[in-house]
């Protein structure tokens, strides 16, 4: 009797301790990431706070800004295979924005499906994932000004000869299109194809793996992202066809968020002094093909 009581007690303690163990959230690990340049000489500033009150365009007073990212969307946010650390255009852009606004960027990894709804519900301060500005989305969230205009195109296996555009693709009933759920890519595909011919995966890497394996015949994707993935698989994939749709990308905020104005001002100043152009060149320009070695 006493023996089994002790066993139950020990079991209870073990379960209790494991539940109280280190929580597996990424937010606590990402503020102190990869070469943060903390502010100049204010020792009272909390850790991870970028910029200074004096140089800030709008001083947010070191508030934490929770940024939802997917970490599966080259080149905006992804996990580097080499270092295992998350990085990408969104990470660099938000560190720059917070330097100009005197705030702390806290990146939180989230599933794309439901991200916009989560922001609308106030779960995050902002979402950064190459999100297209559309009227439907504007009903429930606020968008920043656009930071880049992208084209939607078709990603196919190298040497694909059965079609050269989405119109030709649509005419061949045997062909299947791959893409990601809840994206404007999906909505564009629905304009050309019946839903039965579109396979919508949770993340783009799945769709691209399906493309490589032959389960789908093309993936409709933002050109920049397509370039990132075809850079990684240069011998197997290529982008073809003219631009199918032109989209403007922006950050999303909860409706009425006080962050929209400051972030817009920060983006304007980044456009004015060429920082944004340099950032776009680094991640979206032809030199981005070098990323294959960076990531490896």
């Amino acid at each position, binding site marked *: 009797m006493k023996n089994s009581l002790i066993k139950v007690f020990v079991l209870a303690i073990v379960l209790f301790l494991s539940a109280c163990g280190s929580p597996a959230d990424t937010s606590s690990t990402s503020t102190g990431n990869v070469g943060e340049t903390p502010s100049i000489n204010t020792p009272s500033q909390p850790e991870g706070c970028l910029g200074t009150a004096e140089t800030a365009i709008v001083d947010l007073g070191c508030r934490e800004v929770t940024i939802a990212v997917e970490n599966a969307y080259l080149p905006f946010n992804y996990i580097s295979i080499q270092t295992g650390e998350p990085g990408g255009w969104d990470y660099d852009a938000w560190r720059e924005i917070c330097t100009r606004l005197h705030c702390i960027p806290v990146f939180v990894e989230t599933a794309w499906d*439901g991200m*916009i*709804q989560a922001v609308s519900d106030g779960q995050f301060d902002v979402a950064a994932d190459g999100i297209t500005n559309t009227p439907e989305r504007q009903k429930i969230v606020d968008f920043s000004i656009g930071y880049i205009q992208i084209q939607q195109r078709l990603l196919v296996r190298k040497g694909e000869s059965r079609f050269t555009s989405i119109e030709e693709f649509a005419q061949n009933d045997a062909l299947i299109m791959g893409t990601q*759920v809840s994206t404007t890519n999906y909505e564009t595909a629905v304009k050309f194809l019946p839903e*039965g011919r579109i396979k919508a995966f949770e993340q783009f890497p799945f769709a691209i793996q*399906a493309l490589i*394996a*032959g*389960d789908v015949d093309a993936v409709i994707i933002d050109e920049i992202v397509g370039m990132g993935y075809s850079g990684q698989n240069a011998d197997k994939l290529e982008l073809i066809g003219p631009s199918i749709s032109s989209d403007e990308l922006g950050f999303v905020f909860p409706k009425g968020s006080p962050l929209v104005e400051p972030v817009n001002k920060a983006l304007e100043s980044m456009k004015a002094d060429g920082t944004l152009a340099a950032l776009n060149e680094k991640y979206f320009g032809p030199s981005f093909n070098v990323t294959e070695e960076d990531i490896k």
Partner: protein
Amino acid sequence: MAVKETIEAKQQIASPQLTGAEIREKIRLFPWWTVGLIGVFVLTAHLILTRPSYQDAFNFIRAGVGVTVQTTLVAYGIALVLGLFTGLGRISHNVVIQNLGTLYVELIRGIPMLVLIFFIAFVGVPAGVGLLNQIGEWFSQIGLQLIAQPLIQLENSSVPMTTRAIIALSVTYGAFQAEIFRAGIQSIGRGQMEAARAQGMTHWQAMRFIILPQAIRNVLPALGNDFVSMLKDSSLVSVLAVRDITQIAKLYAGRSFQYQEAYVTLAVLYLMMTVVLSALVKWIERRVRQDERNA
């Protein structure tokens, strides 16, 4: 006097007054949970009929019911067969068969269903197709072109995602049902087998006519449970972009941002199907028990 007492006694039997204790007993035994469930269904039906946003969601999502039901039925059928043969294999006296069966069960029980679905879809099937292609190559080298050609021409895309999902589901549930069948068979007393052998039956005749019928009757509740469970697990095929009701609900919510309408409708749809299935399984069990008593 005696007649009057008898009449009173008869009246007492004919129209018994319910005591307070009896009423409390009736309240305690009444299936209030059924009332609760029915309430949920009635509320949802009301929402669907009166609100256009719910109507849209419902019309959109129910297009996938066919895929869900079909996936469940096919996967369960395969799992039953797989489970029965593996269960028999595990109690066989043949070393090879017994170890193969045990290996299969232990392997599959160690891998979660979602992981297995991804594994079979992105690793297992491409590897299998590659293997079959290779076998086709060898056949064509020997000269057996008739068999070789279809094998060589087999591609990844010949195996649709639905098939891969069904393979994953049936393989997983087959392992669990192997254990159920094994337990059922082993629960039949040794006397049955001995009596059957004494009658002159072979081992397999005894199995088929004496042991298995009794064993299956015993494990029918567990098998029925598995069926309902598989209906719910069929929602996992949505990660392979198979258009069952879960996937369609996700797509609908993603495009319209009506998350509440989509997921309430989805949950209640599953609830409806599982409740109907549970009732069906209970009915089958009752019929089997009745047959047993009457026999």
